[in-house]
């Protein structure tokens, strides 16, 4: 009860309770971590677990004594999935709350709207959104934790190629995620010598994609179908796909890598594949997998705390926060330039999403390998490789 009260009250300022326990922290000023997330609105399935993750681990870190002996303070705003409010809240974080680092931006639109501000204000920013444009070309102050949609496209197409597929039908959402994914898929397909023979779209609010899928089915030569999208759209696509009785191999993107997708799509999802972080299949990871521990811990801690299924989107926030903490620790201060440099030089950080190796040319630090291909079997995720 108190917990929910706390969540509702105020800006979710989870200031250290640990002050009493730690002498050094008592006097120290908190390190301010700013965040703007799409906690409500159409992208709430991203923002909601992200916020929960941040709240929970800021609390945990404070209980364990904070960072550099200082407690963390999380200041968070809900941008409702709207890019201009994201920009405004980012500005509020920088100019009014004067945070030390920002971990946030659930969607690419929200992130990109805030990027010019971050660059001008020179505040380290770790984005939780997917599109490749966020860190390509590299922006001095901007980092991101999710694999880019380009990697997802690469991973999916590589898996198709392994199965001998060269001609694909593409259906994507017209939202930011879907349309950026579509562009990347088209580019990657060309590089890999594959052909996108059908290219359909649907809008986020559509309730039936049968017409588009019929078009793909009727296109000559299609050997597999890929759906790039997030939200409920892909679940409808999946069900329509099954209803139409299309037999071709079916792929989804990492945008639906969550258990709630399985719930929505039901038996229609049987046999489809998608790239995802190992979070969905923690137990099938081999013992020697470096990610096994961190993945299992995050899953059990999250599920114990929130009584809700863990999602890969929350993991982006986990990695974002941990990278921030690590960078601040390594920098030894919250001096923005020092933190930025530390972030840029992080190597071998094993997170839930993958192993991060940042560099001045790569502000994401992940490779396509961090994606595992999963297949839905008997209503569950199954690790394919």
């Amino acid at each position: 009860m108190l917990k929910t009260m706390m969540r509702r009250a105020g800006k979710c300022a989870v200031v250290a309770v640990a002050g009493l326990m730690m002498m050094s922290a008592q006097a120290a000023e908190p390190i301010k971590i700013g965040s703007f997330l799409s906690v409500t609105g159409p992208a709430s399935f991203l923002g909601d677990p992200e916020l929960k993750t941040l709240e929970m681990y800021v609390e945990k870190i404070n209980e364990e004594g904070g960072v550099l002996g200082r407690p963390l303070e999380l200041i968070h705003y809900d941008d409702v999935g709207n890019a201009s409010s994201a920009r405004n809240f980012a500005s509020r974080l920088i100019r009014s709350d004067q945070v030390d680092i920002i971990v946030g931006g659930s969607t690419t639109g929200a992130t990109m709207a805030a990027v010019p501000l971050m660059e001008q204000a020179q505040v380290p920013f770790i984005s939780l959104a997917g599109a490749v444009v966020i860190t390509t070309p590299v922006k001095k102050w901007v980092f991101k934790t999710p694999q880019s949609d380009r990697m997802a496209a690469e991973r999916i197409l590589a898996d198709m190629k392994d199965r001998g597929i060269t001609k694909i039908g593409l259906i994507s959402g017209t939202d930011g995620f879907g349309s950026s994914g579509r562009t990347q898929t088209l580019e990657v397909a060309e590089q890999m010598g594959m052909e996108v023979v059908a290219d359909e779209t649907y809008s986020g609010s559509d309730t039936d994609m049968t017409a588009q899928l019929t078009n793909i089915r009727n296109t000559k030569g299609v050997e597999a179908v890929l759906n790039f999208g997030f939200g409920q759209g892909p679940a409808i696509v999946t069900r329509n796909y099954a209803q139409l009785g299309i037999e071709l191999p079916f792929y989804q993107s990492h945008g639906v890598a969550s258990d709630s997708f399985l719930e929505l799509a039901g038996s229609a999802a049987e046999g489809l594949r998608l790239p995802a972080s190992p979070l969905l299949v923690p137990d099938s990871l081999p013992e020697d997998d470096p990610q096994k521990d961190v993945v299992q811990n995050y899953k059990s801690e999250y599920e114990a705390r929130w009584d809700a299924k863990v999602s890969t989107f929350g993991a982006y926030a986990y990695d974002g926060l941990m990278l921030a903490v690590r960078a601040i620790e390594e920098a030894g201060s919250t001096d923005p330039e020092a933190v930025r440099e530390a972030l840029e030089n992080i190597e071998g950080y094993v997170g839930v999403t993958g192993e991060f190796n940042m560099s001045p040319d790569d502000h994401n630090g992940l490779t396509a390998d961090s994606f595992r291909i999963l297949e839905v079997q008997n209503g569950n995720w199954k690790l394919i490789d």
Partner: protein
Amino acid sequence: MLAEFLQYLFTGITIGATYALIALGFTLIYNASHVINFAQGEFLMIGGMATVSLTAMGVPMVFAVVLAVILAGVLGIALQRFAIAPAKQADVVTLIIITIGASIFIRGIAQMVWGKQYHVMQNFSTNEPIQVFGAVLNSQSLWVLGVGAVMVVALVLFFTKTLIGKAILATSMNKEAARLVGIRTQMVLMLAFMVSALLGSVAGIVVAPITFTSYDIGIILGLKGFVAAAIGGLGSGVGAVVGGLTLGIVEAMTAGYISSDYKDAVAFSMILLVLFFMPRGLFGAKVVERV
């Protein structure tokens, strides 16, 4: 070729039938009170969400549906009584803003109560699609169409055979005169909102297995219903049905034959075109201005 066409047609008719039911709800309220109720979509949402959450609580489907419809009906009455009635003298736009405020409010409550996730509702009957000349038809589509048809027939009977229905009609034609002959117009208005809410919630329930349901599903479906009502001509029952089906079919055909990117744009251009040639929609009443 035929299979393709049929496939688009099935898709279009199914979604069109949903639009039609929502448009009928608009029409009903418009006729009784000349209000465009932008909260219409929320009735749809309440229907679907309440049914899902009640069944999840273990209530048998049939009771869940009945309870959900009743809940929506009560909400309809409340909307009229507490939001529309007190603002009698308000401007047309002001009334629109009030209903928008109401819809945001209802949505906010739903989000708090039911959360933000999408929810699944099982098909009423089999999950196996039906094959027709190479096209497939979701069995739930038949439910949508069947229930839609039943609702339309019921509405027609309601307005032509029952005293209450006639009272609503009379009020819509001339409020003052209706009052003079002893009709309690305030009751009638509440009734119109209630019936409209019932229609919306039923639409929301039958379509939920196809579209999923969530706290914000009412926004776009409500809007499409308004579009359908305007195409058909505000205030015309036939228009609402024809408008809804037309909109659904045009959307599906555009997605199938022209461009899925511009599907919605084509639908909206269609309205402009219809209104350009028929400023009061397809079946709108021709009104001669009295001066």
